Protein backbone atom coordinates (compact mmCIF):
# COMPACT_ATOMS: atom_id res chain seq x y z
CA UNK A 1 0.00 0.00 0.00
CA UNK A 2 2.76 2.45 1.03
CA UNK A 3 4.89 1.63 -2.02
CA UNK A 4 1.86 1.90 -4.26
CA UNK A 5 1.11 5.40 -2.93
CA UNK A 6 4.75 6.44 -3.24
CA UNK A 7 4.74 5.53 -6.93
CA UNK A 8 2.60 8.58 -7.68
CA UNK A 9 4.57 11.70 -8.64
CA UNK A 10 2.13 14.01 -6.89
CA UNK A 11 2.54 12.02 -3.67
CA UNK A 12 6.34 12.17 -3.86
CA UNK A 13 6.18 15.93 -4.33
CA UNK A 14 3.65 16.29 -1.50
CA UNK A 15 5.77 14.29 0.93
CA UNK A 16 9.01 16.06 0.02
CA UNK A 17 7.41 19.51 0.17
CA UNK A 18 5.47 18.68 3.32
CA UNK A 19 8.52 17.37 5.18
CA UNK A 20 10.58 20.39 4.09
CA UNK A 21 7.90 22.83 5.25
CA UNK A 22 7.63 20.91 8.53
CA UNK A 23 11.35 21.44 9.21
CA UNK A 24 11.14 25.13 8.31
CA UNK A 25 8.08 25.82 10.47
CA UNK A 26 9.60 24.04 13.46
CA UNK A 27 12.84 26.01 13.33
CA UNK A 28 11.29 29.44 12.72
CA UNK A 29 8.35 28.64 15.01
CA UNK A 30 10.42 27.92 18.12
CA UNK A 31 11.78 31.47 18.15
CA UNK A 32 8.27 32.88 17.71
CA UNK A 33 6.82 30.70 20.47
CA UNK A 34 9.61 31.65 22.88
CA UNK A 35 9.09 35.33 22.11
CA UNK A 36 5.38 34.88 22.94
CA UNK A 37 4.60 35.48 19.30
CA UNK A 38 2.66 32.23 18.88
CA UNK A 39 -0.14 33.84 16.90
CA UNK A 40 2.26 35.79 14.72
CA UNK A 41 2.11 33.11 12.03
CA UNK A 42 -1.69 33.27 12.08
CA UNK A 43 -1.69 37.04 11.60
CA UNK A 44 0.76 36.82 8.70
CA UNK A 45 -1.19 33.99 7.09
CA UNK A 46 -4.46 35.94 7.36
CA UNK A 47 -2.88 39.07 5.92
CA UNK A 48 -1.30 37.05 3.11
CA UNK A 49 -4.81 35.88 2.23
CA UNK A 50 -5.43 39.51 1.32
CA UNK A 51 -2.25 39.26 -0.79
CA UNK A 52 -3.55 36.15 -2.56
CA UNK A 53 -6.81 37.96 -3.41
CA UNK A 54 -4.87 41.03 -4.56
CA UNK A 55 -2.62 38.88 -6.75
CA UNK A 56 -5.61 37.21 -8.35
CA UNK A 57 -7.25 40.59 -8.95
CA UNK A 58 -4.08 41.94 -10.58
CA UNK A 59 -3.58 38.80 -12.64
CA UNK A 60 -0.30 37.92 -10.88
CA UNK A 61 0.77 34.57 -9.42
CA UNK A 62 -1.10 34.83 -6.08
CA UNK A 63 1.70 33.50 -3.90
CA UNK A 64 4.15 36.19 -5.05
CA UNK A 65 1.76 38.90 -3.89
CA UNK A 66 1.15 36.89 -0.71
CA UNK A 67 4.92 36.94 -0.03
CA UNK A 68 4.99 40.74 -0.45
CA UNK A 69 1.97 41.35 1.79
CA UNK A 70 3.18 38.84 4.39
CA UNK A 71 6.58 40.52 4.70
CA UNK A 72 5.01 44.00 4.86
CA UNK A 73 2.63 42.77 7.58
CA UNK A 74 5.47 41.15 9.56
CA UNK A 75 7.47 44.38 9.56
CA UNK A 76 4.33 46.41 10.29
CA UNK A 77 3.38 44.36 13.37
CA UNK A 78 6.89 44.75 14.74
CA UNK A 79 6.96 48.48 14.00
CA UNK A 80 3.54 49.05 15.59
CA UNK A 81 4.67 47.23 18.74
CA UNK A 82 7.85 49.27 18.99
CA UNK A 83 6.66 52.70 17.99
CA UNK A 84 3.17 52.92 19.44
CA UNK A 85 3.71 50.73 22.50
CA UNK A 86 0.82 48.49 21.42
CA UNK A 87 0.99 45.01 22.95
CA UNK A 88 2.03 42.19 20.63
CA UNK A 89 -1.29 40.35 20.82
CA UNK A 90 -3.27 43.52 20.02
CA UNK A 91 -1.07 44.29 16.98
CA UNK A 92 -1.48 40.69 15.82
CA UNK A 93 -5.27 40.82 16.28
CA UNK A 94 -5.53 43.98 14.16
CA UNK A 95 -3.60 42.47 11.25
CA UNK A 96 -5.24 39.08 11.62
CA UNK A 97 -8.71 40.44 10.98
CA UNK A 98 -7.71 43.12 8.47
CA UNK A 99 -6.00 40.60 6.15
CA UNK A 100 -9.08 38.42 5.82
CA UNK A 101 -11.34 41.49 5.59
CA UNK A 102 -9.28 43.01 2.76
CA UNK A 103 -9.25 39.64 1.00
CA UNK A 104 -13.04 39.30 1.26
CA UNK A 105 -13.59 42.87 0.00
CA UNK A 106 -11.32 42.24 -3.02
CA UNK A 107 -13.05 38.93 -3.79
CA UNK A 108 -16.45 40.62 -3.47
CA UNK A 109 -15.51 43.58 -5.66
CA UNK A 110 -14.05 41.34 -8.36
CA UNK A 111 -17.18 39.21 -8.49
CA UNK A 112 -15.27 36.08 -7.42
CA UNK A 113 -12.36 34.22 -8.96
CA UNK A 114 -12.19 31.11 -11.08
CA UNK A 115 -9.27 29.85 -8.92
CA UNK A 116 -10.31 27.73 -5.95
CA UNK A 117 -9.79 30.15 -3.07
CA UNK A 118 -10.36 27.28 -0.63
CA UNK A 119 -7.00 25.79 -1.62
CA UNK A 120 -5.36 28.85 -0.04
CA UNK A 121 -7.58 28.67 3.02
CA UNK A 122 -7.04 24.97 3.72
CA UNK A 123 -3.89 24.10 1.76
CA UNK A 124 -3.39 21.91 -1.27
CA UNK A 125 -0.21 19.95 -0.68
CA UNK A 126 -1.32 17.13 -3.00
CA UNK A 127 -1.48 19.63 -5.85
CA UNK A 128 2.03 21.14 -5.55
CA UNK A 129 3.84 21.33 -8.88
CA UNK A 130 7.53 20.66 -9.55
CA UNK A 131 8.12 24.44 -9.61
CA UNK A 132 6.36 24.82 -6.24
CA UNK A 133 8.51 22.03 -4.79
CA UNK A 134 11.70 23.69 -6.03
CA UNK A 135 10.55 27.02 -4.56
CA UNK A 136 9.77 25.37 -1.21
CA UNK A 137 13.18 23.65 -1.13
CA UNK A 138 15.06 26.81 -2.13
CA UNK A 139 13.20 29.04 0.34
CA UNK A 140 13.71 26.55 3.19
CA UNK A 141 17.41 26.16 2.37
CA UNK A 142 17.98 29.91 2.28
CA UNK A 143 16.11 30.60 5.55
CA UNK A 144 17.79 27.75 7.41
CA UNK A 145 21.22 28.91 6.24
CA UNK A 146 20.56 32.41 7.59
CA UNK A 147 19.35 30.99 10.91
CA UNK A 148 22.39 28.73 11.14
CA UNK A 149 24.76 31.63 10.43
CA UNK A 150 23.10 33.89 13.02
CA UNK A 151 22.02 31.18 15.45
CA UNK A 152 23.69 32.60 18.57
CA UNK A 153 22.47 36.14 17.91
CA UNK A 154 18.87 35.01 17.28
CA UNK A 155 18.81 32.75 20.35
CA UNK A 156 20.44 35.38 22.60
CA UNK A 157 18.00 38.07 21.43
CA UNK A 158 15.10 35.67 22.06
CA UNK A 159 16.39 34.78 25.54
CA UNK A 160 17.11 38.31 26.73
CA UNK A 161 17.12 41.37 24.49
CA UNK A 162 18.78 43.63 27.05
CA UNK A 163 21.76 41.37 27.67
CA UNK A 164 22.07 40.63 23.97
CA UNK A 165 22.30 44.37 23.34
CA UNK A 166 25.02 44.78 25.97
CA UNK A 167 26.98 42.02 24.20
CA UNK A 168 27.00 44.10 21.05
CA UNK A 169 24.24 42.26 19.18
CA UNK A 170 22.13 44.53 16.99
CA UNK A 171 18.90 43.37 18.54
CA UNK A 172 16.54 45.42 16.35
CA UNK A 173 18.11 44.09 13.16
CA UNK A 174 17.88 40.51 14.39
CA UNK A 175 14.22 41.00 15.34
CA UNK A 176 13.36 42.43 11.92
CA UNK A 177 15.29 39.66 10.21
CA UNK A 178 13.39 37.04 12.18
CA UNK A 179 9.97 38.51 11.35
CA UNK A 180 11.03 38.85 7.72
CA UNK A 181 11.89 35.14 7.67
CA UNK A 182 8.61 34.35 9.44
CA UNK A 183 6.78 36.23 6.66
CA UNK A 184 8.50 34.11 4.01
CA UNK A 185 7.91 30.89 5.96
CA UNK A 186 4.19 31.49 6.38
CA UNK A 187 3.54 31.90 2.66
CA UNK A 188 5.77 28.93 1.84
CA UNK A 189 3.75 26.83 4.30
CA UNK A 190 0.34 28.00 3.07
CA UNK A 191 0.44 25.30 0.40
CA UNK A 192 0.68 22.62 3.09
CA UNK A 193 -1.98 23.55 5.64
CA UNK A 194 -3.53 26.75 4.29
CA UNK A 195 -4.11 30.13 5.89
CA UNK A 196 -6.39 28.91 8.66
CA UNK A 197 -4.22 26.22 10.20
CA UNK A 198 -0.76 27.65 9.72
CA UNK A 199 -0.01 28.53 13.33
CA UNK A 200 -0.52 24.86 14.24
CA UNK A 201 2.72 24.02 12.43
CA UNK A 202 4.58 26.83 14.20
CA UNK A 203 3.25 26.12 17.66
CA UNK A 204 2.14 22.53 18.31
CA UNK A 205 5.37 20.60 17.54
CA UNK A 206 7.41 23.18 19.46
CA UNK A 207 5.16 23.17 22.53
CA UNK A 208 5.32 19.35 22.53
CA UNK A 209 9.11 19.32 22.12
CA UNK A 210 9.56 21.88 24.92
CA UNK A 211 7.86 19.43 27.30
CA UNK A 212 10.31 16.71 26.37
CA UNK A 213 13.60 18.34 25.41
CA UNK A 214 16.25 19.78 27.68
CA UNK A 215 18.76 21.84 25.74
CA UNK A 216 17.84 24.14 22.88
CA UNK A 217 19.32 22.10 20.06
CA UNK A 218 17.78 18.89 21.41
CA UNK A 219 14.39 20.59 21.60
CA UNK A 220 14.65 21.85 18.01
CA UNK A 221 15.58 18.36 16.77
CA UNK A 222 12.65 16.85 18.69
CA UNK A 223 10.29 19.46 17.30
CA UNK A 224 11.49 18.76 13.75
CA UNK A 225 11.01 15.02 14.34
CA UNK A 226 7.47 15.49 15.63
CA UNK A 227 6.59 17.91 12.87
CA UNK A 228 7.97 15.83 9.98
CA UNK A 229 6.43 12.61 11.26
CA UNK A 230 2.97 14.15 11.75
CA UNK A 231 3.09 15.82 8.33
CA UNK A 232 4.10 12.60 6.56
CA UNK A 233 1.59 10.49 8.50
CA UNK A 234 -1.08 13.14 7.97
CA UNK A 235 -0.56 13.13 4.20
CA UNK A 236 -0.77 9.33 4.08
CA UNK A 237 -3.85 9.36 6.29
CA UNK A 238 -5.55 11.93 4.12
CA UNK A 239 -4.92 9.78 1.05
CA UNK A 240 -6.25 6.62 2.69
CA UNK A 241 -9.31 8.26 4.23
CA UNK A 242 -9.84 10.70 1.37
CA UNK A 243 -9.86 13.73 3.67
CA UNK A 244 -8.08 17.12 3.57
CA UNK A 245 -4.35 16.71 4.45
CA UNK A 246 -4.29 19.94 6.48
CA UNK A 247 -6.93 18.57 8.83
CA UNK A 248 -5.29 15.18 9.31
CA UNK A 249 -1.82 16.74 9.86
CA UNK A 250 -3.04 19.14 12.54
CA UNK A 251 -5.25 16.53 14.24
CA UNK A 252 -2.27 14.15 14.42
CA UNK A 253 -0.05 16.90 15.83
CA UNK A 254 -2.69 17.64 18.47
CA UNK A 255 -2.87 13.92 19.32
CA UNK A 256 0.91 13.82 19.87
CA UNK A 257 0.66 16.90 22.11
CA UNK A 258 -2.26 15.39 24.02
CA UNK A 259 -0.44 12.09 24.47
CA UNK A 260 2.68 13.91 25.69
CA UNK A 261 0.64 15.93 28.18
CA UNK A 262 -1.11 12.79 29.42
CA UNK A 263 2.15 10.85 29.75
CA UNK A 264 3.75 13.74 31.60
CA UNK A 265 0.80 14.11 33.97
CA UNK A 266 0.92 10.38 34.68
CA UNK A 267 4.62 10.68 35.46
CA UNK A 268 5.55 8.36 32.60
CA UNK A 269 7.94 10.83 31.02
CA UNK A 270 11.01 12.17 32.67
CA UNK A 271 12.67 15.02 30.79
CA UNK A 272 15.60 13.70 28.83
Amino acid sequence: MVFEVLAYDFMQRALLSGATIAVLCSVVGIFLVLRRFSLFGDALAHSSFGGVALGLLMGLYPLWMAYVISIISAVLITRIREKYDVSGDAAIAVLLSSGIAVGLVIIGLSGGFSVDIFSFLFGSILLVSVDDTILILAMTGAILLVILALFRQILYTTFDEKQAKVSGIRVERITYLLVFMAGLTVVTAIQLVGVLLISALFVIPNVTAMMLGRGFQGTVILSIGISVSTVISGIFLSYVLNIAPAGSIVVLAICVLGATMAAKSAGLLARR
Partner: protein
Amino acid sequence: MPRPIEVSNLSVGYAGVQALENVSFGVDQGEFLGIIGPNGAGKSTLFACMLGLNTQYTGTVRVFGQNIHRSKGPLKKIGYVPQMMHFERNFPVTVREVIQLGMWHGVQEERVDEVMRELWIHELADRRIGELSGGQQQRVFIAKAMVNDPKMLILDEPVTGVDQASMSLFYGILKDLNSNHGITIMWSSHDLDAIKMMSSHVACLNRTLYFHGAAKEFFADEKLAQIMCQCTDPSECMEHNPGIAEPPPIRNEAS
Protein backbone atom coordinates in the same frame (compact mmCIF):
# COMPACT_ATOMS: atom_id res chain seq x y z
CA MET B 1 45.71 52.66 33.01
CA PRO B 2 42.39 54.53 32.54
CA ARG B 3 39.71 54.27 35.21
CA PRO B 4 37.06 51.63 34.52
CA ILE B 5 34.27 54.21 34.82
CA GLU B 6 34.35 57.99 34.61
CA VAL B 7 31.00 59.80 34.57
CA SER B 8 30.91 63.59 34.08
CA ASN B 9 27.86 65.84 34.36
CA LEU B 10 25.49 63.07 33.33
CA SER B 11 21.85 64.14 32.97
CA VAL B 12 19.00 62.01 31.65
CA GLY B 13 15.42 63.10 31.15
CA TYR B 14 12.50 61.45 29.44
CA ALA B 15 8.78 62.18 29.20
CA GLY B 16 9.26 65.36 31.20
CA VAL B 17 10.90 63.52 34.13
CA GLN B 18 14.49 64.15 35.15
CA ALA B 19 15.88 60.67 35.88
CA LEU B 20 19.46 61.82 36.52
CA GLU B 21 20.78 65.32 37.05
CA ASN B 22 24.38 66.35 36.74
CA VAL B 23 25.91 63.16 38.10
CA SER B 24 29.71 62.95 38.21
CA PHE B 25 31.84 60.25 39.78
CA GLY B 26 34.53 57.72 38.94
CA VAL B 27 35.37 54.12 39.76
CA ASP B 28 38.97 53.00 40.27
CA GLN B 29 40.44 49.65 39.31
CA GLY B 30 39.78 47.06 42.05
CA GLU B 31 37.10 49.17 43.74
CA PHE B 32 33.88 47.61 45.09
CA LEU B 33 31.31 50.36 44.68
CA GLY B 34 27.79 50.02 46.09
CA ILE B 35 25.12 52.25 44.59
CA ILE B 36 22.24 52.98 46.93
CA GLY B 37 19.08 54.99 46.64
CA PRO B 38 15.31 54.52 46.80
CA ASN B 39 13.20 53.12 43.97
CA GLY B 40 13.17 55.49 41.01
CA ALA B 41 16.44 57.10 42.10
CA GLY B 42 17.98 56.48 38.67
CA LYS B 43 20.24 53.51 39.49
CA SER B 44 19.13 51.40 36.53
CA THR B 45 19.22 54.47 34.27
CA LEU B 46 22.82 55.09 35.33
CA PHE B 47 23.74 51.48 34.50
CA ALA B 48 21.89 51.72 31.17
CA CYS B 49 24.01 54.76 30.23
CA MET B 50 27.24 53.00 31.21
CA LEU B 51 26.31 49.90 29.21
CA GLY B 52 25.38 51.82 26.08
CA LEU B 53 21.70 50.83 26.40
CA ASN B 54 20.61 54.44 26.88
CA THR B 55 22.23 56.99 24.58
CA GLN B 56 19.74 59.82 25.21
CA TYR B 57 21.74 61.78 27.76
CA THR B 58 23.89 64.83 28.17
CA GLY B 59 27.35 64.68 29.74
CA THR B 60 30.05 62.08 29.24
CA VAL B 61 30.37 58.43 30.20
CA ARG B 62 33.84 56.99 29.77
CA VAL B 63 34.44 53.25 30.09
CA PHE B 64 38.10 52.30 30.37
CA GLY B 65 39.00 55.72 28.99
CA GLN B 66 36.73 55.65 25.96
CA ASN B 67 33.56 57.62 25.43
CA ILE B 68 30.85 54.95 25.36
CA HIS B 69 28.69 57.15 23.14
CA ARG B 70 31.29 56.83 20.37
CA SER B 71 32.66 53.32 20.87
CA LYS B 72 31.06 50.21 22.35
CA GLY B 73 34.42 48.40 22.29
CA PRO B 74 35.23 48.85 25.99
CA LEU B 75 32.02 47.01 26.91
CA LYS B 76 33.94 43.83 26.16
CA LYS B 77 35.81 44.44 29.40
CA ILE B 78 32.56 44.55 31.38
CA GLY B 79 30.37 41.70 32.57
CA TYR B 80 26.77 42.64 33.30
CA VAL B 81 24.36 40.86 35.63
CA PRO B 82 20.83 42.25 35.46
CA GLN B 83 18.06 42.15 38.05
CA MET B 84 16.36 38.76 38.33
CA MET B 85 15.25 38.00 34.81
CA HIS B 86 11.72 37.02 33.91
CA PHE B 87 12.02 34.56 31.09
CA GLU B 88 9.71 31.76 30.00
CA ARG B 89 10.09 29.06 32.69
CA ASN B 90 10.00 26.45 29.93
CA PHE B 91 12.69 28.19 27.88
CA PRO B 92 14.60 25.14 26.65
CA VAL B 93 18.16 26.20 27.38
CA THR B 94 20.54 24.49 29.78
CA VAL B 95 22.91 26.26 32.17
CA ARG B 96 25.80 25.45 29.81
CA GLU B 97 23.93 26.97 26.84
CA VAL B 98 23.13 30.15 28.78
CA ILE B 99 26.82 30.63 29.63
CA GLN B 100 27.80 29.91 26.02
CA LEU B 101 25.45 32.69 24.90
CA GLY B 102 27.64 35.19 26.72
CA MET B 103 30.89 34.05 25.08
CA TRP B 104 32.72 36.47 22.85
CA HIS B 105 34.21 35.15 19.63
CA GLY B 106 37.55 33.46 20.35
CA VAL B 107 36.83 32.44 23.94
CA GLN B 108 37.67 28.75 24.42
CA GLU B 109 34.92 26.27 25.25
CA GLU B 110 36.96 25.03 28.27
CA ARG B 111 36.39 28.41 29.88
CA VAL B 112 32.70 27.49 30.28
CA ASP B 113 33.57 24.50 32.45
CA GLU B 114 36.15 26.53 34.34
CA VAL B 115 33.74 29.32 35.19
CA MET B 116 31.02 26.83 36.17
CA ARG B 117 33.43 25.22 38.65
CA GLU B 118 34.44 28.62 40.04
CA LEU B 119 30.80 29.45 40.73
CA TRP B 120 29.80 26.01 42.05
CA ILE B 121 27.31 25.34 39.29
CA HIS B 122 29.16 22.63 37.32
CA GLU B 123 26.74 20.00 38.58
CA LEU B 124 23.85 22.02 37.15
CA ALA B 125 25.40 22.24 33.67
CA ASP B 126 22.74 20.15 31.93
CA ARG B 127 19.75 21.42 33.90
CA ARG B 128 17.30 23.82 32.31
CA ILE B 129 17.76 27.37 33.58
CA GLY B 130 14.05 27.62 34.48
CA GLU B 131 14.34 24.66 36.87
CA LEU B 132 16.87 26.41 39.12
CA SER B 133 16.25 28.47 42.24
CA GLY B 134 16.68 32.26 42.11
CA GLY B 135 20.09 32.04 43.79
CA GLN B 136 21.33 29.37 41.39
CA GLN B 137 20.09 31.37 38.41
CA GLN B 138 21.96 34.45 39.58
CA ARG B 139 25.17 32.41 39.87
CA VAL B 140 24.60 31.23 36.30
CA PHE B 141 24.26 34.84 35.16
CA ILE B 142 27.47 35.78 36.99
CA ALA B 143 29.16 32.84 35.25
CA LYS B 144 27.85 34.13 31.92
CA ALA B 145 29.22 37.57 32.74
CA MET B 146 32.56 36.09 33.84
CA VAL B 147 33.10 33.74 30.90
CA ASN B 148 34.98 36.40 28.93
CA ASP B 149 37.30 37.29 31.85
CA PRO B 150 35.99 40.84 32.28
CA LYS B 151 37.90 43.50 34.19
CA MET B 152 34.72 44.81 35.76
CA LEU B 153 31.32 43.48 36.83
CA ILE B 154 28.15 45.58 36.94
CA LEU B 155 25.29 44.06 38.93
CA ASP B 156 21.87 45.70 39.05
CA GLU B 157 20.09 44.65 42.27
CA PRO B 158 21.36 41.11 41.84
CA VAL B 159 19.83 39.60 44.97
CA THR B 160 16.22 40.64 44.43
CA GLY B 161 14.11 37.51 44.94
CA VAL B 162 17.05 35.42 46.13
CA ASP B 163 16.71 33.42 49.37
CA GLN B 164 18.91 34.17 52.40
CA ALA B 165 21.13 31.08 52.11
CA SER B 166 21.86 31.69 48.43
CA MET B 167 22.53 35.33 49.20
CA SER B 168 25.41 34.47 51.56
CA LEU B 169 27.00 32.24 48.94
CA PHE B 170 26.45 34.91 46.30
CA TYR B 171 28.12 37.60 48.43
CA GLY B 172 31.03 35.27 49.15
CA ILE B 173 31.56 34.79 45.42
CA LEU B 174 31.47 38.55 44.76
CA LYS B 175 33.96 39.18 47.55
CA ASP B 176 36.29 36.51 46.14
CA LEU B 177 36.08 37.93 42.62
CA ASN B 178 36.98 41.37 43.94
CA SER B 179 39.65 40.45 46.49
CA ASN B 180 41.35 37.50 44.84
CA HIS B 181 40.77 38.10 41.13
CA GLY B 182 41.03 41.90 41.14
CA ILE B 183 37.67 42.38 39.42
CA THR B 184 36.25 45.88 39.84
CA ILE B 185 32.66 45.60 41.00
CA MET B 186 29.83 48.11 40.84
CA TRP B 187 26.50 46.99 42.18
CA SER B 188 23.20 48.34 43.40
CA SER B 189 21.10 47.04 46.24
CA HIS B 190 18.41 48.10 48.70
CA ASP B 191 20.08 46.01 51.37
CA LEU B 192 22.10 48.54 53.38
CA ASP B 193 23.70 45.88 55.55
CA ALA B 194 24.98 44.05 52.48
CA ILE B 195 26.31 47.28 50.96
CA LYS B 196 28.08 48.06 54.22
CA MET B 197 29.53 44.57 54.51
CA MET B 198 30.67 44.23 50.90
CA SER B 199 31.52 47.62 49.43
CA SER B 200 34.72 49.61 49.78
CA HIS B 201 32.96 52.69 48.40
CA VAL B 202 29.41 53.96 48.29
CA ALA B 203 27.53 56.26 45.94
CA CYS B 204 24.19 57.53 47.14
CA LEU B 205 21.97 58.41 44.23
CA ASN B 206 18.59 60.03 44.19
CA ARG B 207 18.33 61.59 40.73
CA THR B 208 21.49 63.47 41.66
CA LEU B 209 24.51 62.21 43.53
CA TYR B 210 24.24 62.91 47.28
CA PHE B 211 27.36 61.15 48.34
CA HIS B 212 30.30 59.37 46.82
CA GLY B 213 33.19 58.20 48.94
CA ALA B 214 34.49 55.55 51.31
CA ALA B 215 31.86 53.20 52.77
CA LYS B 216 33.28 53.71 56.27
CA GLU B 217 32.69 57.43 56.03
CA PHE B 218 29.15 57.00 54.76
CA PHE B 219 28.12 54.50 57.41
CA ALA B 220 29.67 56.50 60.25
CA ASP B 221 26.15 57.84 60.83
CA GLU B 222 23.78 54.89 60.36
CA LYS B 223 20.60 56.97 60.60
CA LEU B 224 21.84 59.39 57.99
CA ALA B 225 22.69 56.48 55.73
CA GLN B 226 19.19 55.08 56.12
CA ILE B 227 17.54 58.38 55.34
CA MET B 228 19.68 58.86 52.27
CA CYS B 229 18.77 55.44 50.97
CA GLN B 230 15.09 55.31 51.71
CA CYS B 231 13.71 58.84 51.36
CA THR B 232 12.41 59.98 48.03
CA ASP B 233 13.50 63.49 48.97
CA PRO B 234 16.49 63.29 51.36
CA SER B 235 16.51 67.05 52.13
CA GLU B 236 12.89 66.91 53.28
CA CYS B 237 13.57 63.80 55.35
CA MET B 238 16.42 65.58 57.08
CA GLU B 239 14.04 68.31 58.24
CA HIS B 240 11.76 65.73 59.84
CA ASN B 241 14.58 64.01 61.67
CA PRO B 242 15.80 66.52 64.23
CA GLY B 243 18.23 63.94 65.65
CA ILE B 244 20.46 64.67 62.70
CA ALA B 245 21.78 68.17 62.89
CA GLU B 246 24.07 68.22 59.87
CA PRO B 247 22.83 68.61 56.30
CA PRO B 248 23.46 65.70 53.93
CA PRO B 249 27.14 65.44 53.04
CA ILE B 250 26.89 66.24 49.36
CA ARG B 251 30.38 65.38 48.32
CA ASN B 252 31.96 63.51 45.54
CA GLU B 253 35.47 62.15 45.30
CA ALA B 254 35.48 62.67 41.54
CA SER B 255 34.70 66.41 41.69
